[in-house]
């Protein structure tokens, strides 16, 4: 199979052309010229692979057992399909104009979509490969998605389609590799020399200002409806029970228990240390708030465990209410 898509001289992209339109021009183009394997499918490479993967299937390495099997001879592990045409440690740089995938990635890099991750890989095997088979890999840019929002960041999914042919020109397998080329989410990368990052600041507004001012004084306050007297948290303008807009605040005892919790291991986000416990704390007054459970091995945290508030200055400017196991070890 040769690349049948003639790209011609790509017209200079006018500045006004949208990124999406510039990307779509690459669909259907060969991502690079066909690559012939440097070496045929061979026993030493198969053995390295089986050693590394711990694959003991005898049809890959044991001549006798392979001959007695349905394969009637030694074969390569099918999932090695991609291995034979890998570029190796010193790849030959493609000629300018022939590296369509490189051009596509360059456009995305310049537009800020600098990160890449593979999300899917689909391989189909027309037949098992045998030592001596010599493969050629032909690659095409099969599809480019619209811009998608993902957990990693906003970006484009790119489907690359590889066709593998043998020394007779027959297709032995295909592969679809889907990659996401994305603009990484705003988050402090864990590069050591970066300025030390600080805990996120609470967003203080007219509804919750009393709470944070209380925290600054070392008081844990709970909003109370002066219409019906019920407590509520987090702070909001209207009582969910009687719809009154009138409220004041009462000081909590600071005692409560762990209503629920999660232990956060990943992904690491500065300046937090890991693992740490995010707890939903039920105060003895009845309201619940999200905080951290500190001064305890995360593995020891239990639902129902009694805790008490403490006020921790996490940096020069910010004090947060946190919870630690009740001193004196009062168990219920």
């Amino acid at each position, binding site marked *: 199979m040769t690349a049948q898509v003639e790209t011609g001289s790509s017209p200079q992209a006018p500045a006004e052309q949208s990124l999406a339109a510039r990307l779509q021009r690459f669909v259907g183009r060969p991502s690079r010229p066909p690559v012939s394997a440097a070496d045929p499918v061979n026993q030493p*490479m198969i053995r*390295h*692979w089986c*050693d*590394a*993967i*711990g*694959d*003991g*299937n*005898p*049809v890959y390495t044991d001549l006798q*057992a*392979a001959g007695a*099997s*349905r*394969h009637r001879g030694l074969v390569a*592990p*099918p*999932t*090695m399909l*991609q*291995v034979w045409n*890998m*570029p*190796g*440690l010193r790849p030959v740089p493609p000629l300018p104009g022939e590296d369509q995938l490189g051009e596509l990635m360059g456009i995305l890099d310049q537009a800020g979509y600098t990160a890449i*991750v*593979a*999300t*899917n*890989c*689909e*391989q*189909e*095997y027309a037949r*098992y490969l045998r030592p001596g088979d010599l493969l050629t890999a032909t690659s095409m840019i099969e599809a480019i998605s619209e811009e998608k929002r993902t957990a990693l960041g906003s970006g484009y999914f790119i489907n690359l389609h590889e066709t593998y042919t043998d020394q007779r020109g027959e297709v032995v397998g295909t592969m679809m*590799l889907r990659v996401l080329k994305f603009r*990484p989410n705003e988050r402090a*990368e*864990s*590069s050591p020399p970066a300025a030390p990052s600080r805990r996120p600041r609470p967003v203080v507004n007219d509804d919750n200002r009393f709470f944070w001012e209380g925290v600054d004084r070392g008081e844990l306050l709970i909003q109370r409806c002066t219409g019906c007297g019920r407590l509520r948290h987090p702070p909001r303008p209207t009582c969910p029970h009687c719809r009154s807009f009138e409220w004041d605040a009462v000081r909590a005892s600071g005692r409560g228990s762990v209503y629920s919790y999660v232990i956060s*291991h*990943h992904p*690491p986000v500065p300046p937090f240390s890991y693992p740490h416990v995010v707890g939903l704390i039920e105060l003895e007054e009845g309201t619940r708030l999200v905080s951290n459970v500190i001064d305890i091995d995360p593995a020891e945290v239990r639902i129902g465990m009694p805790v008490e508030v403490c006020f921790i200055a996490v940096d020069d400017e910010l004090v947060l209410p946190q919870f630690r196991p009740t001193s004196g070890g009062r168990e219920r």
Partner: protein
Amino acid sequence: MADAVRPPLRFDEVHVGDTLPELAVEITPTLIVSAALASRDFQDVHHDVSLARQHGMPDIFMNILATNGFVGRFITDWAGPDALIRRVSVRLGAPNFPGDTMRMTGTVTATELQDGEGMVGVEVRGANRLGDHVVASVSVSLPAGR
């Protein structure tokens, strides 16, 4: 790891809902590096910790070709030497970092006789402590008839 070879599995022995023997893969730097090199994948994030960190990763991590390899091995560890893998489709998730364990589980989701060939569909999951490293769908042909 690869000790007793099971007798080759036959199509009529397999039923939808069957589960495959679990495989726990200890992820070590040696495993990650040897699998990357055995697959001729020399990307730095699969063998060089300091460069992996420059890319924002906490450590080196397993490459995709190795993940495919483990999915293939997981199938033939169960099905034996007469299994013919026809298709492997993987969805990639949480990276496999050193110090973790990938626990592989699998369930038969389809069995169909096609032109005398016993085609079996298997869903495979490889989970580590961060979540699913891989969720794969595999089509494998098992000997049928006679």
